[in-house]
């Protein structure tokens, strides 16, 4: 779709100094193609390299014969993983870009509004205290208790922060930042207290949860979390104009016709929903939210109307690649994906920073 609309415009656009939109559109087309390619690789390549991919795809559609094992690998393991990695990558990158726009700081990440700390607390509580749930409730939530609790925790802490920072219809971003630090410390303490109660196995689970994984992706989780993430991704572009204006400061944005309070509310809720849902399925995955928008800003400029869609595409691509690495490099075991994103993202980010020192420090 993206590639097609690109072709409609046709012709060579006049070269206009300082206008990077054409470049952004070209980039978007390229990223869309790359995303398609990476998705195919993700579906076609894995630890079980003897899987007959095409036959397995065809089998569910009644077009071919394949073993139950192959069908399961393709349809119930790789596909939900692929979709989850793409959705979560897109959502983390877009949420990062939105937070950075909102806080007017290229280092902001969703953690600033308490999503991560809250989700962590929820997950820890579910892992450690899940056994104390009434049997009926435990049977109902089952394997999804951790995801559900993480989403709830992330969402709840954002709402609390937003309430604290809002007075007389005005939300102070600075208050939110500071209260976020306080709330982070508090949730950290609560988390620590619960961790203290954890047994050995639970401790291991907690450690792995913190490193993130797409391995537990299932259609059931996607059905629950996917629509939330998708809604947030669809809502994000509507924030673009406002976030662009906000680059000049809140008063200026208001003078330019932006309803700043509404913008802040929608941005915060969008981030809370999408990151909460993402963290719920995959645990903690760092770096995507900071690296992707930053990289794109260097290439195509800071305009959010082009930044947000491209961030979604690049975030999806990066997480898909990280997932492919995480599940093949130590096969048949697999690395937590958070380790892969941080290992690749850390040095890369440093390299970008050093290369662009002049711009950043001016």
């Amino acid at each position, binding site marked *: 779709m993206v590639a097609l609309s690109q072709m409609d415009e046709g012709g060579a656009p006049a070269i206009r100094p300082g206008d990077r939109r054409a470049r952004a559109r070209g980039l978007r087309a390229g990223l869309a193609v790359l995303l398609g390619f990476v998705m195919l690789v993700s579906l076609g390549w894995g630890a079980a390299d003897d899987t007959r991919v095409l036959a397995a795809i065809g089998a569910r559609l009644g077009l071919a014969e394949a073993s139950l094992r192959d069908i399961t*690998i393709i349809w119930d*393991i790789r596909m939900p993983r692929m979709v989850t990695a793409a959705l979560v990558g897109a959502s983390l990158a877009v949420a990062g870009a939105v937070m950075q726009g909102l806080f007017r700081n290229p280092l902001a990440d969703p953690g600033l509004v308490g999503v991560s700390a809250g989700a962590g607390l929820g997950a820890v509580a579910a892992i450690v205290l899940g056994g104390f749930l009434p049997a009926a409730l435990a049977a109902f939530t089952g394997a999804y208790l951790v995801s559900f609790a993480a989403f709830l925790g992330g969402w709840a802490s954002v709402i609390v922060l937003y309430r604290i920072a809002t007075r007389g219809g005005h939300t102070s971003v600075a208050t939110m930042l500071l209260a976020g630090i306080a709330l982070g410390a508090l949730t950290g303490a609560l988390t620590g207290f619960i961790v203290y109660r954890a047994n050995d196995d639970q401790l291991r689970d907690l450690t*792995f949860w913190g490193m993130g994984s797409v391995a*537990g992706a*299932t259609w059931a989780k996607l059905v629950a979390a996917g629509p939330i993430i998708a809604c947030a991704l669809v809502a994000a572009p509507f924030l673009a104009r406002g976030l662009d204006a906000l680059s000049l400061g809140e008063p200026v944005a208001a003078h330019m016709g932006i309803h700043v309070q509404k913008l802040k509310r929608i941005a915060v809720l969008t981030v809370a929903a999408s990151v909460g849902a993402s963290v719920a399925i995959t645990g903690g995955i760092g770096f995507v939210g900071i690296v992707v928008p930053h990289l794109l800003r260097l290439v195509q400029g800071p305009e959010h109307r082009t930044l947000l869609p491209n961030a979604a595409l690049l975030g999806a691509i990066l997480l898909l690649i990280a997932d492919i690495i995480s599940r093949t490099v130590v096969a048949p075991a*697999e690395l937590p994906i958070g380790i892969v994103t941080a290992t690749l993202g850390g040095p890369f980010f440093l390299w970008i920073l050093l290369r662009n020192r002049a711009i950043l420090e001016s």
Partner: protein
Amino acid sequence: MKRFALTLAALAFPAALWAESYPDARSIVSIGGPVTEIVVALGQQDRLVARDTTSQYPPEIEALPDVGYMRQLSAEGVLSVAPDLIITRNTAGPVEVLDQLRAAAVPIVEVEDGFTPEAVVNAIRVVGAALGTHDAAEALATKTEADFAALASERAKGAAPAKVLFILSNQNGRLNVAGRGTGADGIIGLAGAENVMGAEFEGYRILNDEALAAAAPDVVLMMDRQEDHSADADTILSLPALAQSPAAARHGFVKINPAALGFGPRTAEFARVLHLAFADAMQAEN
């Protein structure tokens, strides 16, 4: 719903009687150290195609592909070794991955975890049934029961039980010690000693120095890990919390094989060795 029905069935029949059997399985993934040990003890290691990270005994087993830590399995990783049976401790996970494996029509036999002789014997029967090696399993179970019985009579001859403190780790002077419901607690009991923290709490805890001093253990027990200098006898026994304890006075410090914390076919032997070690340590007093 299906799982609920299975749970009901499991409750209704003793596990060993009801246990599933897959005598034709030739590509087996074994998950959990004790489970793997039982498979090997039953002479069936040739049927294994992969193991998890916690399966490290006997050493030859480490040549098999490793499907990862037992609570963090990957469905595709396990499927990539094309198993026709998975035998696993019931604490393996994540649940979603086990569900995916079941969806791929790979039978999964779960072995109940436990820190008692009964749990070991039951595990041997369940694994034996799964492998279709009923006779070998019965023989091993009988032998294991006999080992435990011999251990019990040896225990009975011993003097008053030593008060043992199990230290999982020394984190810069802060000690992580075992309460009840742990493998350490189980093996200490089998060795005829008393876990000083057995009545205090469940699982592992980092304790404050005063509680440790008040516990006054006769013997300190730690895992025998190479290159772990924080676990030297002198280092541990000179910590303020333990310096005044009977253990420090008689230099009562014992190390065990880490494998002793997971209960399997070697448990009776581990317990016997430990029983002797405790007796030695207590002798040192006189």
